[in-house]
Structure formats: structure tokens, C-alpha cells
């Protein structure tokens, strides 16, 4: 019966003939192969000087978004933490006080929001779960560090900096 892959090859075991025994033709063939590679284009990307563009749906470090008035969008509903398969997200909610309307968009906000970057698998389920469009994985790579505690990113690292919407429009 013929095998399924049809890749079986019967190898003939015969003594080497004269040309094979003097090695030289085989050596010449090998040399021609290596010299061809010598002049080939090199696919290496010289990393620090030359950075390959990321794909459009690259998922990097999380950022907590602000709305058009510069208020934090997050309302601390906890859906992101619930959806997270690696259980990397924790948060503490707080009620918005009077006079804080320009800081937080909703009446409830996250006073503490922490992501453990060592647990995070960058799957993007948190940004899918978020009903307020408050979290996106659109940052750069998460960089290396020395201590485990330094990988727990708080709001100081996650919330995007305030920007002026009028200047952004230009």
C-alpha cells in the first residue's frame, strides 16, 4: 500500500564511485553554495537604529483614556478585571465629590487602578469588555525592570496625560 504522504524514498546503498570518493566535486559544490550566500541580501534588522514598524493591531502597554474635556473615562465598573483571564487588573472605586466634575466623567471613578504587567498576557479582552471605551492597549512595549513590585503599574503610569483638545484638532 502506498503511504498517505507519498514522501517515502527508497535509498540505494551503494559504494561511492570515484568522483564521490575524491571529495573534490562535492567540496566545490559546497563552496559555490556558501559563496552565493556571501553575496545575498541580509535580512537582519539592526534593532536600536532601525525599528521595524508594528502591525496596526499591536497590543502594547495599557492606557486609561480621557474624554474630550480631559476627564477620566473609567467608572470602575470592574468588567475589565472580570474579563481578564490572567487576573492582572485590580481596582478600588470611589464616589466623585462635588467640584471634581472636571476630573472624572462618571459619578463613580477608580481611585486605585493597578495592572500587574507580569501577569498580563496582552490578550486585549479588557479593552473589549470596557463599556466606557476607557482602556486601550495602544502603548509601547512594557520595559524590563529589576523588582517585581515595579511591574505593578498604577494610575500614575496608566492614565494618559492631559491634552488640549483645541490644539489636537489642528
Amino acid at each position, binding site marked *: 500500500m502506498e503511504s498517505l504522504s507519498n514522501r517515502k524514498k527508497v535509498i540505494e546503498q551503494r559504494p561511492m564511485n570515484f568522483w564521490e570518493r*575524491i571529495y573534490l566535486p562535492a*567540496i566545490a559544490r559546497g563552496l559555490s553554495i556558501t*559563496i552565493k550566500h556571501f553575496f545575498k541580501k541580509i*535580512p537582519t534588522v539592526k534593532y536600536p537604529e532601525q525599528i521595524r514598524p508594528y502591525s496596526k493591531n499591536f497590543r502594547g502597554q495599557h492606557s486609561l483614556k480621557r474624554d474630550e474635556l480631559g476627564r477620566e473615562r473609567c467608572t470602575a465598573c470592574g468588567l475589565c478585571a472580570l474579563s481578564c483571564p490572567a487576573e492582572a487588573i485590580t481596582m478600588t472605586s470611589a464616589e466623585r465629590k462635588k467640584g471634581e466634575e472636571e476630573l472624572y466623567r462618571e459619578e463613580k471613578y477608580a481611585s486605585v487602578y493597578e495592572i500587574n504587567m507580569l501577569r498580563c498576557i496582552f490578550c486585549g479582552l479588557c479593552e473589549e469588555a470596557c463599556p466606557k471605551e476607557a482602556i486601550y492597549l495602544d502603548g509601547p512595549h512594557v520595559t524590563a525592570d529589576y523588582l517585581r513590585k515595579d511591574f505593578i503599574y498604577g494610575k500614575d503610569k496608566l492614565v494618559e496625560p492631559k491634552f488640549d483638545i483645541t490644539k489636537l484638532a489642528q
Partner: protein
Amino acid sequence: MEVAFILEKLILVVIIFVITLVIAMYSTLAERKIAGFMQDRYGPDRAGIFGLLQPLCDGGKFFFKEEIIPAGAHKTLFVIGPVIAIITACISSAVIPWGQNLTIGDQVITLQVADVNIGVLYIFGVIALGVYGIMLGGWASNNKFSLMGAIRAASQSISYEIPMGLSLIALLMVTGNLSIGDIVANQSGFNWNIWVQPLGFLIFIVCAFAECNRVPFDLPECETELVGGYHTEYSSMKLGLYMFSEYINMFVSSALMAALYFGGYNFPFMYDLGLSENWITIIGTLVFFLKIFGFIFFFMWIRWTLPRFRYDQLMNLGWKMLIPLAIANIVLTGIITIVVDTYFK
């Protein structure tokens, strides 16, 4: 006269020594670069432009590494090993003619340190000494891997010195001379010895690979089976000296092949271009170095192409193929010489 002579030779020795060391230094970089390009990558390019400072970094690193002498090692021999290796590698370049005569004022300077009339024999003696460095180092380390490497080095170098000598005998039958200076001078223009001794050259280059312990004959080092072979126990600059002597050996044997078979400093139409004698000498020396670099490149090209021979294959090739071939080459050369002399002159 005497003082001027000694001074002239001294300057020449220093220049050749410096050139040898610099070339050996940059051979290490060239090797890694060529390895890189042949494997579709760049090789070292971080230290300086194109990695040109890499050899300096490597050398500096060797100097600052910890010096370890194993407790069970024979201390004196352990230290002497790399010293012998590097000295024998360096002194073999003494009889190689680097160019013709240079005339400055009424001084005639020969670009050869010593035109010994038995230059070929001298080279052989020095090459035979070279294996002592490896043998002593390997044996004094008191390590089984090192000992294996040393044994292999000894047997390999004995086996391949015979066909090398026999191939040179055929060359001597053609040239009728043992002085390397005269052998090179007789190949003026395009009358290179390779045209009359192609088989001899083939045998010689295979043996040169074996004598330099280069791939495919690098059994004494043999990283995959013997850790580091004879230099397993070596560290710091002593290891550096072993590495260095390997590259110097490669340079010297390239120079030897270029001188004996590829006309040395001779290049085609050297007397028809109407150049002054000094210019011919200078261009000739440059051409000689170009040939040497070509051979060094060939050494590296082979290294990144071929796998290592097995030990029994190595011995088979040496004793059963190269020696009979070299003897046949001698007989053939003799017959052809007689036929040409009697019927075509």
C-alpha cells in the same frame, strides 16, 4: 656597513612582526565577518564602524580575564606551551621574500629577512616544532580532553607532514632550488609554479589546512567532542596566544603557498609596463599581500563550508590517498621533466 646591515634587518624584522600581528588580529574579525555573511547575517558590527575595533576589545578582554592554572597541571610546561606555539608561528615568516630589492640612494634593501639557501627545510623544521606547543599544553593540563586533543594534534601533524614534504619534493625537482627567494624569483611574470605543479599544489594546500589545525582538520580543538581540545584548561591571555598563533600560522602558510606556487611578488606583465624598479617592488609587495589575503579568505571560506573529518577518515585521507598521490606526482614530474628535456629542447 655592519651596523647599517643589522639596522636594516632589524627594521625589517620589526615591520614584518607588526604586520603579522596586525593581520592575525584582523583575521579574527574577518573570520567572524565572513562567517556572518555566509550565514546571512552581519557578524560583529557594534565596536567601531563595521566592528573595526572588535579585535582590540577581544584582546583587552583576554588581558583582564582571570588566569587559571589547574592544581594538577605541570606548571612550567603549562606556561611554556602557548609561548612555544606563538614563537614558532612568528619565526617561520623569516625566510619568506616579501618583495624584490628596494633601492634608496645607493643602498639596496632586500625585502626578505634571511635568504637562507635551505629556506624550505627551515620552514619544515619550524612547522614540525609548532606542534610541540600544542602537545605540551595539552599534556601539561592534566585533563583527558586536553590529552586527546594533544594526541590528535601530534598524530595529525606527523601524518600530514609526509605528503606535504613529498609534494614539495616534486616542486624542488622543477625549480632545482631550496632557497625560497630563488624559487620566487624564478617565477617572474606569469610563470607561476601552479601551472607545472597543480597536483602538488592541491596536496600542499590540503596538508596546509591540516598543519594549521583548520576545519575540516580541526580535530585537536574539536569543540563538539573535546570541549576545547588541547586548550580546554587555558584561560586569559594564554588562551589568547593559542588563538593568535593559529591565525599567524594561517597567515604564514598563506604567504608560503602564495610564494611557492602563485609567484609570490610576481605579477603578469611586470616588466612590460615601463615602471621603475622601485615601483615594481612596491606593486609586487602589494600583489603578494593580495594573494595572501586571497588564501586567508579561502581558508575561512572552507571553514564555513565543510564539516569536520572523523579521526579515521583523517588518517585514511592522509596515509591512503595523499601519500600515494604525492609519490605519483613525484614520478610523473620526473618522467615529464625527462621527456621535455630530451625531445622538446
